[in-house]
């Protein structure tokens, strides 16, 4: 009765949110009577609020993956409202910008032309590189809100956000020059952060004239694949650089060097297959350091035969073979190592020295040495440092991320010693410098039976007294002998980086 009167008192009013927990209702019977109502109301409210929360989360964060999807037809129209932002190097040097010509048409201009071709990419006739990776952010404007409103009212385009990369313009130039006239790739990583400092690939193209030359690039059937970024998408026979993995597998299996000793006569036979050392050099009596430092094919063939084949492959897979690389660089190739338990001896011997069916990308090798340099912890490679608005105010900062501990710190330190031995006493002696200590492994990959079409490799890293470090992978195609090409290129790159 009391309740009815109360309602009468409020008869022209809408009901209020009361009684949700029954307290305000008639205590005698209303409290219990409406408990079920309260529960149902709260459950529904909670569901609605969770959904609202998800909607907010989606619009604020998750939607970027959707907006930036090539299937989203709306991306194309974003360029109608925004002037594509600039791409900058890590010190603010402009690598790509949008210019307005006399007729008011927008032209994408790349001041460095070919030098940054694959890293920065292009935004005409499709997209590649940073242009593709950050397409959405370059077309979004976080300019000052009043500026944007004023622009919209005036019917003017808003200035897109600028993307600041991790690329070092000086180092990129050194890499580009170091490749010289050869096809191939150089990629430089900062081991403790995963930052891509430089990324060069040849043959190259001029992104400023890509539209004019497009037909030539895509119809080119000479196999040179100008548009391919060899640093991240190229797959190469690893040659002797793969001995890093064979050595690591052996150290794991033997829990140490197992008192390794080998007498190299320049050739080694098993199962009717004969393996030669480079130039048929006989290395004589070697311990494991010397075998690695000399890049002794005979010793590593015998090591390969002593390995358990399936755990050898498992270990390679732990080191990122046969799987997508944890890198935030767009499309990257998957390296291959396919040795299985019943592989024959000749294939095992070839695989152990980096021939056989194994294929790697330069990026993958750079990541491996980078993890060794960083005491086993692999940092996820990335090349976008931050995104800023036209006034330089940061709107999105990328942090470096751990991709995982590839090996224990102890194992990494052991590997560091072997890589150092290559430079102090082995095939990488020409990398000795008083400005930095270099570590690494050389390689010559036999690409065909023609000796003049070998690929020359160097993978390694260097550090100076200040603790500044850089990892590099160099591959140069179609050269005569390993050390004469990739090692000097690596030297030029190290010299440039540590001169700064």
């Amino acid at each position, binding site marked *: *009765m*009391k*309740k*009815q*009167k*109360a*309602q*009468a*008192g*409020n*008869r*022209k*009013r*809408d*009901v*209020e*949110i*009361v*009684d949700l927990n029954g307290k*305000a209702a*008639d205590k005698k019977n209303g409290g219990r009577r*409406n*408990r*079920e*109502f309260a529960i*149902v*109301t709260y459950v*529904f*409210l909670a*569901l*609605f609020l*969770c*959904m*609202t929360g*998800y*909607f*907010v989360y*989606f*619009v604020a964060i998750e*939607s*970027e*993956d*959707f*907006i930036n*999807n090539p*299937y*989203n*037809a*709306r*991306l194309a*129209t*974003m360029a109608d409202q925004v002037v594509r932002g600039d791409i900058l190097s890590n010190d603010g040097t402009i690598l790509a910008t949008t210019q307005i010509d006399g007729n008011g048409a927008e032209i994408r201009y790349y001041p460095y032309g070919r030098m940054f071709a694959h890293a920065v990419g292009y935004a005409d006739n499709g997209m590649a590189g940073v242009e593709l990776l950050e397409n959405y952010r370059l077309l979004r404007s976080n300019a000052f809100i009043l500026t944007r*409103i004023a622009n*919209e*009212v005036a*019917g003017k385009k808003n200035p897109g956000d600028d993307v600041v990369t991790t690329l070092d313009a000086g180092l990129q130039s050194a890499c580009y020059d170091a490749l010289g006239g050869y096809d191939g790739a150089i990629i430089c990583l900062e081991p403790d952060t995963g930052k891509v400092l430089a990324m060069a690939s040849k043959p190259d193209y001029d992104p400023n004239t890509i539209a004019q030359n497009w037909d030539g690039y895509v119809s080119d059937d000479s196999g040179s694949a100008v548009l391919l970024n060899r640093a991240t998408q190229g797959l190469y026979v690893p040659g002797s650089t793969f001995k890093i993995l064979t050595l690591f597998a052996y150290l794991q299996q033997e829990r140490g060097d197992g008192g390794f000793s080998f007498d190299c006569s320049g050739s080694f036979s098993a199962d009717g297959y004969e393996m030669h050392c480079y130039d048929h050099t006989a290395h004589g009596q070697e311990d494991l350091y010397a075998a690695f430092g000399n890049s002794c094919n005979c010793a590593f063939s015998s090591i390969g035969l002593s390995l358990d084949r399936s755990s050898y492959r498992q270990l390679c897979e732990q080191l990122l073979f046969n799987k997508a690389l944890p890198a935030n660089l767009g499309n990257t190739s998957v390296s291959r190592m396919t040795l299985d338990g019943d592989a024959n001896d000749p294939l095992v011997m070839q695989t152990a020295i980096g021939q056989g069916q194994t294929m790697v990308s330069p990026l993958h090798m750079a990541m491996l040495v980078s993890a060794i340099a960083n005491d086993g912890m692999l940092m996820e490679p990335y090349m976008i440092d931050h995104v800023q608005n036209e006034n330089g105010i940061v709107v999105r900062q990328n942090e470096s991320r751990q991709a995982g501990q590839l090996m224990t710190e102890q194992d990494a330190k052991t590997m560091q010693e072997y890589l150092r031995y290559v430079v102090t006493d082995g095939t990488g002696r020409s990398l000795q410098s008083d400005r930095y200590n270099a570590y690494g492994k050389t390689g010559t990959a036999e690409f065909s039976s023609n000796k003049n079409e070998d690929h020359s490799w160097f993978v390694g890293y260097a550090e100076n007294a200040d603790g500044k470090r850089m990892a590099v992978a160099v591959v140069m195609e179609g050269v005569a002998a390993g050390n004469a090409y990739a090692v000097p290129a690596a030297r030029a790159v190290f010299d440039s980086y540590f001169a700064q």
Partner: protein
Amino acid sequence: MVHVIVSVSRFTMIMLMAGYTYYCFAALRQNISEKRQERIYKKQTRLMYGILLNADLVLYLLTRDVRILGLTLCEILLFALTLMIYQKIYDHASKSLVNNMCMLLTVSFIILSRLDLEKAIKQFAYAAAAVVITCFIPILVAKLKVWNKLTYVYGLIGIAALAFVCVAASTTYGAKLSIDIGPVTLQPSEFIKITFIFFTACMLRISTAFPHIVKTTAIAAAHVLILVASRDLGGALIYLVTYLVMLYVATRQPWYMILGILSGALASVAAYALFAHVQDRVIAWRDPLRVIDDQGYQISQSLFAIGSGGWFGAGLGQGMPDKIPVVTTDFVFSAISEELGAVFALCLIFVCISCFLMFFNIAMQIRDRFYKLIALGIGTMYGTQAFLALGGVTKFIPSTGVTLPLVSYGGSSLLSTMILFAIIQGLYVLQVDEGVKNEETEGAGRKQKKRR
């Protein structure tokens, strides 16, 4: 000049909508004087007209189609008529609910005018017819005393109509949920919602003894299973949840609820295992971009729209909502979010929540058991449908292909929802009138209890 108005309107419409939504909840606050509440409802009405005029101005400037101006005028007249019916004739009606109903219709008219003017005109005609039809419902609900005596009539009509559609559909093609009667296409499951609520309320009013509950559940389950057989899983879910909530509140037995949820969960697992179209929905929900060419196409397009629109929207006529399949019905919310902005869309969600709360509030105040259960059923049905529709297009839950009440295009859905709103108004009027009568007859001398 047109550009300026289009750009500025993006922000003004959001501000108007935000104001409206704020008042929805401000009016629900406790300790607020009756006068103040009245003022708030007047302000809400003005904001609603503001949004309609603003949007239609933009649409007219973009298309220069005079039909838009005519439609705007008709819409304003219809709203004025509706507000008058529920303010002057039924002067005890819930004004908050009338406002929300008109607001949801406004949003519907705006987005349909943008997407497909023909459909907007049709939707307006449906709405106008619905207002005329439903304006008698409150009085019928309040005066006729026959509603709680037709128990098995409701049940029979419900099962017969659903079964007829199910059979007719299976002999034609696919998941057809509608039947053609001359020029009109009817979707019976929309109207059976009403008889279903009445049936359940009648049964639970009679008794909550176990044997009776078994009988009730069997007939309710028949409704649900026929819907499952017609592949209308969203519909089946709405019926199921409504039944469970009504059963739980009527019996106060949490075990019925728990059992119901468990059997519902089991049924979902079974449906997932049995039906390919259920698996498709789940696959699309988990990672739409992975299956974008296939099952994920619809939801991806919806999310492209919501994402690209951003917080403030692309502006009316500036987005690409046409890329979304079935945009005028199931995915109407995505089109709203794309062009009017996520902030506007958020406000719309809150208006739906406010409607739901009003339904439950009214249900809670009603003393008559039968009417109380009806109001509860209507509230639950509305809440469930809004949740499934909004959650589905935002990828919060797998899409169930349910329309957003009053906003999505469709005559059957519009009419049945407006009938539900009118029934609630009838119950509200009845409840307030009873209160008045009681006060007049026996109120004297008793201390009035404050409900605040």
